[in-house]
Each structure stands twice: as C-alpha cells, then as structure tokens.
C-alpha cells in the first residue's frame, strides 16, 4: 500500500516539531578579538600571573632566537619558530593543571618547554636524532605532531578516555589556521562536541599557512565561527595579548573540567619569522605588514601593562632577560654536544617484540656495522 492509499486516514496533525539541538546564540564568538591588556579588564588580572607570563614570554622569545641560531650552526635540521606567537604558546602551557594534557604541533616546542619539557628533548625531532625526545607521559605532552590537524582527534580520544575513567583531565590541542582546513579538524571537533569531551582547541591564526594567506584558506567570518557548526562555543581572542589568551583558555579549560564540553578558541596572532629557517617569507608578504605586527608584539603589550601598573621595574625586566639568557646559554651548550646515536635503534620499538623479519634485518645491519668498525680499526694500509 502506498501512502496515497491512506489518504482517507490522513489526520492533519502538525509536522514533527523541529527544535534547534542547542541554542546557537551563545556559541557565536564576539565580533572582535577579546583583549585584556590596555583595557579595563586588565585591572582584574592577577599580578602574579601577569609577571609569570611576562617572564615566560621573554624566555620564550629568547628560546626561539636561540633555536633559530642553532639551525644556522647546523645543530638543528630545521626550526619552525614561534616568534611573535609566544603569548599563545605560553598561555596554553600555563593554563593547564598538572594532570592535563597538551597536544602540540611541530611549531609548538615552546609550549612543550613552558610546560616543563627539557628544551633539548623538545628539539630532538628537529635536531633529527629521534622523532620524539621526551616521554609523553612525563609531562603529559603528546609528541610534536607534523601531519596537520591529525593530533586533534588524539586529544579528543584522550580526553574522552580520561572522562570514561572518571579522571579529572582536560586536553588542550594546538593547531594552525591552515590546519583548520583539514578533514581531521572537522572530525575531531564533531566527535568532541557529540561526546562532550573535556578538550579545548586553540587555533593560532598567524595569518599564513606557509605562504598561503588566510583569505585563500577560508571565507568564514572568523575561524571561531566554525564552533557553532559543532555545537560548541567559539571564542575569539587577541593572540598577542597573553592575559587575554590565558583568560579565555582558562575559561574554556574550566568549562571542560566541569563537564561543559569542548570549546574552540581562535587566537589572532602573527608569525614574525619565516615559516621555518628554510622558508623565504619575502616571497609572499611585505615587510611593512611584518612591521605592523612588531608594534603589536606580545612582549611589549605585556611589558607596557606591567610598567604602567607598576608591577615591574627596570630590575624586574633585567631579571627576566637574564633568566632568558641563562636559559639560552644552557640550551646552546647542551645542543652543541653531539647527540648519542645508535644505528641499531632503527629496529627498537617498531613492535613490542621484533618480528622474525626485523630480527633478520637487525642482524644484517649489525654485521655491516661490525665490518665497518673492523675496517676502521685496521691500521692504515693493511692487516693488524
């Protein structure tokens, strides 16, 4: 029987009621990036936090400069600098509690360092002696992730798992403006919202994905507007205002911790350096643009606020710089030592137990290395 045959029985009841699944209004981001420094909101900021942020920004900037210098000396294979983005990096690290997890991308070694990872270990991937230099469990920092946006579902899964276990854990995941175009971004945010996972997504919108400007990346009013499509709140923040980033992230983390689900935060910032030391930024942007952003430098913004409010003086500034110099000197010294390399590590930890196939290959390499060593040990020109 087709529906048409039912005509007689048709009761003109109202159509099934449609309800928005969530009220969209509160999900929409502010119309301008949230700012604290230089605004009235600054008065409410915790002075100790502002000082702490300042010290970390100064150290972070020095860290970036040092790491870039290390590439010139051939001590790093490559370095994607976060110069100009330190406010995001540092706030992301500071906003988390000890049991929380950070999910950094390749650009976020500073965030890992600010969370406590030894900078030499944080730089291992980029030095090239191993893929990850630290035990992720030690500071609850996931490995630096290179395939764009693929770390986002990991953060969601981890946060979800912690919640299933009844643990008080929030995951904070970092991604770039370019990374938001990847399918994994979409899938991660959707899973997070459906599962109400305790996770915070921080997009560092630095205006470029390598050479591709935001205008070629998205036509959205803002990246934060994407949040509404997942049913989570979107927040827009001045990414060079460390106090503002910290506050917005702290709200989002608290919300997640309280069971309120995920938040998408877009921080408007700028990468002052090239994409990496191997990149030539003059090919795709004007110096004038870079200069504009130098005037909105995260360190200067905070320094001005601290100075204006008498929270720091020349001594305090000098102390922060000295600390940063000492930090850089230590890093330099340690990075100038050759890392220990063991070719047999190729086969380590591919599986819990090497397969028979890998054992054969292991033996092959071992024999090669022994032959090489023997040859090297032989006195010039002949037999021992």
């Amino acid at each position, binding site marked *: 029987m087709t529906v048409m045959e039912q005509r007689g029985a048709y009761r003109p009841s109202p159509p099934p009621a449609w309800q928005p699944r969530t009220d969209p209004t509160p999900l929409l981001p502010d119309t301008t990036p949230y700012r604290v420094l230089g605004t009235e909101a600054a008065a409410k900021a915790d002075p100790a936090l502002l000082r702490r942020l300042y010290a970390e920004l100064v150290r972070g900037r020095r860290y970036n400069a040092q790491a870039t210098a290390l590439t010139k000396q051939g001590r790093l294979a490559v370095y994607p600098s976060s110069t100009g983005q330190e406010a995001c990096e540092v706030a992301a690290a500071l906003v988390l509690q000890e049991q929380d997890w950070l999910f950094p991308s390749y650009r976020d070694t500073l965030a890992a360092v600010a969370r406590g990872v030894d900078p030499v270990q944080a730089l291992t991937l980029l030095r090239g002696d*191993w*893929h*990850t230099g630290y*035990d*992720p*469990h030690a500071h609850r920092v*996931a*490995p630096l992730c290179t*395939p764009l946006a*693929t770390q*986002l*579902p*990991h*953060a*969601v*899964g*981890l*946060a*979800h*798992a*912690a919640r*299933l*276990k009844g643990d008080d*854990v929030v*995951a904070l995941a970092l991604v770039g403006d370019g990374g938001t175009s990847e*399918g*994994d971004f*979409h*899938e*991660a945010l*959707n*899973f997070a919202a*459906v599962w109400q996972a305790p996770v915070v997504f921080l997009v560092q919108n630095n205006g470029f994905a390598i050479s591709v400007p935001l205008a070629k990346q998205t036509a959205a009013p803002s990246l934060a507007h994407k949040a509404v499509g997942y049913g989570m709140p979107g927040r827009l923040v001045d990414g060079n205002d460390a106090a503002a980033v910290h506050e917005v992230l702290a709200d989002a983390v608290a919300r997640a911790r309280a069971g309120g689900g995920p938040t998408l935060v877009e921080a408007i910032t700028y990468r002052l350096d090239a994409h990496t030391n191997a990149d030539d930024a003059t090919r795709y942007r004007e110096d004038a643009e870079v200069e504009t952003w130098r005037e909105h430098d995260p360190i200067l913004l905070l320094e001005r606020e601290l100075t204006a409010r008498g929270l720091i003086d020349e001594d305090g500034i000098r102390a922060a710089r000295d600390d940063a110099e000492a930090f850089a000197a230590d890093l330099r010294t340690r990075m100038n030592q050759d890392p220990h390399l063991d070719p047999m590590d190729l086969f*380590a*930890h*591919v*599986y*819990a137990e090497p*397969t*028979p*196939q890998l054992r054969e290959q292991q033996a092959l390499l071992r024999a090669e290395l022994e032959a090489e060593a023997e040859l090297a040990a032989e006195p010039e020109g002949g037999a021992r």
Partner: protein
Amino acid sequence: MTTVAVKPATMAQALTRALRDALAADPDVHVLGEDVGTLGGVFRITDGLAKEFGDHRCTDTPLAEAGILGTAVGMAMYGLRPVVEMQFDAFAYPAFEQLVSHVCRMRNRTRGTMPLPITIRVPYGGGIGGVEHHSDSSEAYYMATPGLHVVTPATVADAYGLLRQAIASDDPVVFLEPKRLYWSKDAWNPDDPPAVEPIGRAVVRRSGRSATLITYGPSLPVCLEAAEAAREEGWDLEVVDLRSLVPFDDETVCASVRRTGRAVVVHESGGFGGPGGEIAARVTERCFHYLEAPVLRVAGFDVPYPPPMLERYHLPGVDRILDAVGRLQWEAER
C-alpha cells in the same frame, strides 16, 4: 566437570564471543565504530555488546573513519585498548593517514613509551554480491606499513583465538575479517574455546607431497576444495593457511615448500603489487634450490573490484588454481 556438547558455530558468532570475552576480561577494552552499538554492526558482530556492557564500552560514533581511528589513538594513549570497527574495507581508506602516520609509528616514535594497543577490525574481500566499494581486499596496503600486525582468520576457531590475541596485543593489529566466511560454520564450543595461539604462526591445513598452496582468509576454503579436486589429477596438494601476514611465518611456509618443491600463492587481492609478490619472492629467496618451478600466483585481476554479477570471473576459483598447479613444470619431476 561438565561435558559440553560441541555445536557448530559461525565465524560471526565466534567473533562476537571474542569481543564479549575481551570486554568482560578487561575494563580497558572499548569497542567503537559506526552502528556498532544499538544495531550491533551491519554484520551483527557487535550484537548485544552495548546492551551488556553499556554504550560507553561499545559506542556508536559519528560517521567519520579518520575520526574513529584518530580518537582511538588518543584513547590508547591514555591506556585504553580500543577495538575499532571499519564498516567495510573501502571505508577504512579515510582513516589511512591516521593509520600510516600515527597508529603504526607511535611506539617507535616515542621509544616505546607510548604503545598503541589498537585492534582495527576490517571486513574484507568479496564473494558476497556487494555493490561497488563493498568487496575490496586491502591487505597489500597494510602489509607495506611497518609497525602494524596484519592478521586474518579463515576458521571459526581462529576467528576467536586471533581476535583475542589481537586485542591482547600491545601493538596495533589490523584484523581482517573475510566477509564471505562470516557465516561459515564449524564445530566449536564457545564455552570452551581452544587455547589461543600467538599471532604469527601459519598452519598446514592439509598435508600433501606434490605442491604447496599458500593462502589465507577467504581463499582457504577454495584452496582446500582445489586440493580435493586435484586428487583426480594425481596431485596431492598441501595447503598452508598463513593466518598472519605480518609477522610472516617463513618457517612453516618454507618447510612446506622445501618438502613439496612447488608452490602457488592464492589470494583474492589484486596480483600486481599484492601480497603474493612478497610471498613468492621471500619463498624463492629461501627455497631457491628446492624449487622445481617458479612460485606462481593466482590472484584477483588487476582491475577495480567488479560488480557482483561479474565477480565470479574475478575471484580465484578451483579451476584457476588447478590450472596454475598444472603449470608447475611437472615434466621436471624428479
């Protein structure tokens, strides 16, 4: 001591039972995928699990395979043992990047500090009259990806045993379920399943002296049938079921080939760049002087998987296997 009657069970039932036992045995085991909860999966392999263990242990996810595997990675990072269902072979492709760039590398990347004990169940292969994208054999992709185990049962007992092993493994396992054997039956007692053998062991399913058929998963019954039929031609064929493609059991396979001196690799997957090339090459490397003839391959053709009405011409069947056996240069017989 009670004696339990051994009743025939299907491979599907054995798989369900393995999941159920794993969920019961270890609270860290979580099943997730599309339609695995309320519906029990499109093949009903997860039937009843959500009811018995709760939605949080057997979870209907949003429809996104990269998201499923990606979140499973995060869950495993936190110490869980996710068992992921990909609805069909071809629908595992969206998760390829997560698999190849993360799942298989995380342990190595982190020097062993962050293993990922994830089981990825993939119904694979054809022969069920499925329309486009429902009959792929994707094992070649997984074999070429270091860091994964690749396992596939061909019998009811192995379905149970290998799946339990896969879930218990601290490494990621791609667990390939031959769709067309889901409803194959075997005497098997769910309440007293046979001892579980470790992953990585092939098994001789039929002994013979003339030549060895090397196969796995959906092609095992076809090979056994071919071996029966071969008797008429005077060939006594040995049939080896690999069960595990990674790790590969060179020992069992080569022992057989050394005995028989001739071998044919049989699988549904396309021939070119397929598993058979690896298998033939490694057997030849190891058994060269025992071989009376080159190791031959009977495989699916190197074409997109055909529509249901034509699949019988594509799939390796008894005749095609016997033809290959016939080409094993019997004139060279010692």
